[in-house]
């Protein structure tokens, strides 16, 4: 790109003002979301629709609106450094751990791990095979397979490092993930309701097949608190398996696909380096809150955990606003229709397999 050389390295490294303004933009839109979430049911008292709309809908709508305004005014790319979806969602999930009893995490972990292993293996291999049939580059196949089978953008970033993908391929895969995740936030809760799924099964289904963690949280919130708890546990379990997939991919590409001479074998250190540390924060938060609730009265405990829940809602709002702000379709046009067809077919396979697994593994499960 010709513009690259025009930006001196020193100017890039010290220009924190634009990302800071980006964060401010997210905060302002987040405050707007909070105002709408509290205000709309009062302004339209008596309307069932107004009461039914959950905050992710306002957050994403305001984010998309901000996206259009910033794109038209030419400010979007400058402010993009402040749209920290990953940071906001992970902080929100650590806080979410405080509202989930440790017992629920421990009892859900078994079926969540089984579902994650079966789903990741089957969907990865199906996408890899289909990508081969469509003649995609091996690196792009690996990125798309990881993104659709594990957890979207963060998995694509990890896989890109493992297979030494080009940055255009990473940008393209990340765009595909978001383009597919955005409608699923609204479609899956509607389908779960139409199919009459229990909140727990709906949560396991959503957690198992929506690609990005932020979109899983948004869809889970729309279904309800119990669905959100199960969806989060299932998704966090998938997140925790990123390291395993990355280590296998690194070895597979080095020794089987590209046969790089003298390539080092990835070891346990790589597993730890790739492990998403916020998973530890999520579990630690649940352990701390579960212990805390045994030391205080029920009313006091409920009020205090309520404050943590308010903070969690704020971080989730900021993440959902960022999803709307980051949404872009431009890079999809450059790669043609074949990767889109592969990703779409893999997503449909993921949806169906996850529904079957969630029904079998979580139909008797209850969040109490």
């Amino acid at each position, binding site marked *: *790109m010709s*513009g*690259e050389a*025009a*930006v001196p390295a020193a100017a*890039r490294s010290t220009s924190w003002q634009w990302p800071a303004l980006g964060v401010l933009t997210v905060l302002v839109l987040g*405050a707007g979301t*909070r105002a709408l979430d509290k205000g709309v049911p009062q302004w339209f008292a008596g309307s069932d629709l107004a009461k039914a709309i959950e905050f992710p809908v306002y957050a994403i709508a305001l984010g998309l609106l901000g996206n259009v305004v910033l794109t038209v005014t030419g400010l979007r*790319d*400058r402010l*993009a450094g402040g749209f*920290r979806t*990953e*940071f906001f969602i*992970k*902080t*929100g*999930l*650590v*806080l979410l*751990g*405080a509202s989930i009893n440790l017992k629920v995490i421990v009892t859900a972990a078994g079926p969540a791990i089984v579902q994650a292993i079966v789903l990741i293996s089957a969907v990865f291999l199906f996408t890899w095979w289909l990508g081969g049939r469509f003649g995609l580059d091996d690196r792009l196949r690996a990125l798309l397979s990881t993104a659709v089978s594990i957890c979207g953008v*963060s998995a694509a*970033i*990890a896989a*890109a*490092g493992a297979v*030494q*993908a*080009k*940055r255009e391929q*990473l*940008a393209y895969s990340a765009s595909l993930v978001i383009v597919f995740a955005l409608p699923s936030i609204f479609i899956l809760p509607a389908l779960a309701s139409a199919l009459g799924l229990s909140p727990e099964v709906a949560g396991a289904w959503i957690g198992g097949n929506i690609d990005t963690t932020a979109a899983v949280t948004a869809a889970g919130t729309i279904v309800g608190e119990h669905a959100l708890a199960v969806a989060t546990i299932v998704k966090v379990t998938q997140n925790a398996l990123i390291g395993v997939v990355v280590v296998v991919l690194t070895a597979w590409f080095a020794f089987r696909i590209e046969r790089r001479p003298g390539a080092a074998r990835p070891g346990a250190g790589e597993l730890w*380096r790739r492990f*998403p*540390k*916020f998973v*530890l*924060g999520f579990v*630690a*938060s649940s352990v*701390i*809150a579960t212990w*805390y609730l045994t030391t205080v009265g029920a009313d006091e405990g409920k*009020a*205090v955990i*309520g*404050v*943590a829940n*308010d*903070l969690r809602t*704020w*971080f989730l709002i900021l993440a959902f606003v960022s999803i709307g702000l980051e949404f872009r379709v431009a890079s999809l046009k450059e790669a043609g229709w074949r990767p889109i067809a592969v990703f779409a077919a893999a997503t449909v396979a993921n949806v169906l397999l996850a529904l079957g697994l969630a029904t079998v593994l979580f139909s008797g499960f209850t969040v109490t």
Partner: protein
Amino acid sequence: MSDEHPPTVAEHTRAALNEDWAATIVGLVLLALVLTGVIPTGLVP
């Protein structure tokens, strides 16, 4: 198109790893502040 330099895969990986720790620390610190009463009920809008 942006005229900023596009981040490399290595930069993406580094940023993701740093955000992971940052989110864990910020989340747990906020929880500690809530449980110890430094952030009281009613303060969060």
